[in-house]
């Protein structure tokens, strides 16, 4: 007949509106759960606002300009001019459309949206502090919670993102001008993507990496393709040096100081320094101690294959729940969490999570490398197809790179793939499907691929592994 504070009760509260959180919220609502999504910043999270999407917008524009300027081999001559202000406005428009879409989708599915920062008050209550002064607080009682707070760029000593010349990846993607000289600290995938982009947009880029190569997470023959192209673009690399600090110089620029392990110091003059040394999970706003939940030593919330934390009714998905920090992994976990919350028998049982790096050329991988397959106890069977033997690659004037398929020798089940090629991020989808379906080399080789396309390289690599490739020598 009558009731009390009704709207403060919900079946599921989702904390964080990124690709893990909003997907979880929509799926939970689709399953009939009363769902509340709390977002402290912008819907879509780091991915849509400060990561994947804006970086791809910049990268595409930089590629267009770079390709046009370097097409003389095809008889095309151009000297494109990039208006960085207009580019940034276009990028912002793309981001706005996507984040607006996320908000509309949530609302259309009946997700209750609350803007603010959520912290646990007890095992079934979160307190939400609204953004902005005097916006107040509110409390939401929940049956189940899905933590999807994501991650943020890691700061290193001596470099404070609050200082204007020091860029995080987020700042770099909000840039309205291209710096003349840019020092990039870190040659991981974010460092390499942005180095390439800003080099193509006209910056003189110096990359400072503590380790001895670019993209240390990838195999040498994969990363070396990207490295060679970066060299061609005029990017300078210094390895074995760690950035130690920076200062303003008399002419209004900055000097970035580095140090080798044995104490040798160097200085690089620049206009901006981009620190891209990794990302760290965000748990400090949640007041996890109120529910006796603690992150592990790496700061992640450990979960089981149902995306549950140590508390059965509290889920964690996405970057906060562990590596790899990838948007599509977050979404997949979000789906699992929502379905388990709805009482379904869902589980995260993916065989492999594909990953893409939007360098030039792109890198994409899924599943096991040859070494990993061996380590796992398989007898690996490997097939490769170099890009230079693919007709479409030649017509794109892209001959650097290759496709490699790793299978197990017994029955030829596909275990993984590594691709360095233009559109590698798209090509990997087929390999991911093969791994996930338990497809065999025969299956890939027996599937007719469109000619002339880059995708034929997958068929060829599978045939090569079977010792029967047509367009390469089977040694």
């Amino acid at each position, binding site marked *: *007949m*009558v*009731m*009390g*504070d*009704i*709207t*403060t*009760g919900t*079946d599921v509260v989702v904390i964080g509106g990124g690709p893990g959180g909003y997907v979880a919220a929509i799926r939970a609502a689709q399953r*009939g*759960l*009363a769902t509340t999504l709390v977002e402290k910043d912008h819907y879509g999270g780091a991915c849509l606002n400060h990561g994947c999407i804006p970086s791809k917008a910049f990268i595409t524009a930089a590629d267009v300009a770079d390709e046009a300027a370097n097409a003389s081999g095809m008889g095309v001559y151009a000297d494109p001019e990039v208006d960085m202000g207009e580019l940034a406005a276009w990028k912002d428009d793309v981001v706005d459309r996507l984040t607006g879409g996320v908000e509309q989708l949530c609302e259309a599915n009946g997700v209750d949206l609350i803007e603010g920062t959520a912290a646990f008050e007890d*095992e079934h209550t979160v307190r939400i502090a609204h953004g902005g002064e005097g916006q107040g607080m*509110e409390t939401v009682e929940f049956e189940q919670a899905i933590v999807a707070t994501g991650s943020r760029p890691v700061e290193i000593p001596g470099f404070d993102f609050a200082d204007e010349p020091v860029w995080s990846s987020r700042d770099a993607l909000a840039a309205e001008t291209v710096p003349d000289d840019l020092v990039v600290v870190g040659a991981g995938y974010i460092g390499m993507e942005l180095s390439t982009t800003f080099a193509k947009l006209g910056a003189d880029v110096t990359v400072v990496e503590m380790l001895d190569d670019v993209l240390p997470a990838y195999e040498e023959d994969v990363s070396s393709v990207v490295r060679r192209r970066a060299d061609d673009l005029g990017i300078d690399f210094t390895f074995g040096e760690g950035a130690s600090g920076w200062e303003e110089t008399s002419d209004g620029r900055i000097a970035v100081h580095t140090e080798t392990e044995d104490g040798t110091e160097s200085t690089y003059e620049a206009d901006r320094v981009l620190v891209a040394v990794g990302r760290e999970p965000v748990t400090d706003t949640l007041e996890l101690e109120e529910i006796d939940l603690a992150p592990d030593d790496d700061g992640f919330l450990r979960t089981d294959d149902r995306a549950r934390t*140590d*508390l*059965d*009714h*509290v889920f964690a998905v996405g970057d906060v729940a562990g590596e790899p920090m990838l948007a599509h992994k977050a979404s997949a976990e979000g789906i699992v969490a929502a379905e388990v919350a709805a*009482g379904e*028998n*869902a*589980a995260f*049982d*993916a*065989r492999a999570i594909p990953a893409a790096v939007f360098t030039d050329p792109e890198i994409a991988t899924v599943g096991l490398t040859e070494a990993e397959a061996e380590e*796992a*106890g*398989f007898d690996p069977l490997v097939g490769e197809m170099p890009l230079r033997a693919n007709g479409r690659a030649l017509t794109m004037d892209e001959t650097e790179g290759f496709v490699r398929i790793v299978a*197990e020798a*017994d*029955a*030829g*089940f596909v275990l993984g793939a590594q691709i360095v090629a233009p559109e590698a991020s798209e090509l990997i989808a087929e390999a991911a499907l093969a791994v*996930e*379906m*338990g497809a*065999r080399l*025969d299956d890939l080789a027996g599937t007719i691929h469109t000619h002339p396309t880059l995708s034929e390289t997958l068929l060829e690599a599978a045939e090569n592994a079977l010792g029967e490739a047509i367009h390469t020598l089977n040694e």
Partner: protein
Amino acid sequence: MVEQSFELPDLGEGIAEGELVAWAVAPGDHVEQDQVIAEVETDKALVEVPSPYDGTVTELHAEEGEMVPVDYVIATFEIDASDAEPAGTEAETDESSTPVDAGTVEAESAELETAEATEGGAEASEAGGAPGGRVFAAPSTRSLARDLDVDIETVEGTGAGGRVTESDVRRAAESASESGASEPASGADATPSEAEPVVVESAGGTKRERTLAMPATRRLARERGVDINDVPASEEREGEPFVTPADVEAYVESGGSAAETGASAERGASASAGAAAGGTGAGTNTGDAGAAASPGGERVPYRGIRRTIGEQMAQSKFTAPHVTHHDEFDASGLVDLRAELAEIADEEDVNLTYLPFVVKAVTSALKEVPYLNASLDEEAGEIVLHDEYNIGIAVATDDGLLVPVIKHADRKGLKELAREIDELATQARERSLPREAMRGGTFTITNIGVIGGEYSSPIINYPEAGIFAMGPIKKRPWVVDDEVVARKTMTISMSVDHRLVDGAEAAQFTNHVQTLLADPARLVLE
């Protein structure tokens, strides 16, 4: 013989402890694996704890009524040396899974059997022998295995290269359910004294071994003399049947209780006497009754506002002993005055209904009877007499009743009240009420007159102390100077929390309200 200690298993949902309500066994008793040995009540549910072993109970380490933390050793068993190994292994496995779930234990042993059975097959060991436990199967096949509770790593793959196919999984599930089905049967044969006295099939098929229900529901089932495991569940939680009080009542009405009374008495006896020999006298098959209790039909999820209302109401009704008071008064004066004032109000675009008058009268009465503008702080053991008069108004919406609150009703005039009520009701119907507008109420008024009926027994908007329901104003027989005449009267109903006030205060309150409303000129003085 090997001694094994048994810790209270994980009770689920992050629950750290539970009250050991009753032991079903005593030292010296022989127990079968999966036999219920104790009942533990958490704030969420009453859980039956099954024995992980076949063996003899040597010692119980907790008293009935004691709060026992999870992982605390509650019993010691003596088990046969030959059984020690598998039982021990199982116990360890149990720690990571949910040992109180008898279904899981069954599934595990079924898997074990499948694994053993397939080890002989050369092809199967090839598939199972893939490094890192890798099974080659499509995501849809893996998902099917999950749904059928089949461990895909133990399934023999007959697809190309040993790939596990959908039919492989289905075959494995069938063979597992066959071996699983034989288990409870053989268990019952082995220990007739522990066999369920009545074999009742619930609507879903075989009788449940475990049922989720709130403690209050279990109490209700006990009072009605039905075994909660026989009651068809209308809901599912965490994949388990969840029985509601309504389910119990429906089952009782359908005749489920009659045959069950004997059985439940017997259960009670056997529980209290430890492992008493159970008779089999009441062996009537009430399967049909059980099935009839749950006729088909549309199933609407119990969620959102509907559930919030339900939970709120259940809490109120089960916490606050309600006493309801009814009365009627001559409302002719009120009708005249409202008609007169409404015209004036209309000029200012204010829709003056009877509600603002009632709000004023009720607020005045609350000042007379402060214990009705109060709530009970059970934790502190104090009655809180509120110093604000915030009146909640129940508004019917498509989704259920919402109760926006008029803050400081005592400081507002009729016009202001009318305006605010209008606004809040509109917002409630449009579902655009700000959360704040539904908080801080100290007393609630509901208007039952709109839809019809004379009186009601409203449920208090807990933790408030009372609720006032105004009935319809219409012509009713009324005695004036020993003559029965037609007069416009209003009926009123009011429920109060008997812990805070008695019926007399309720009457005092309604008298005050009636005095003011019967002679509404007095309201102007308020």
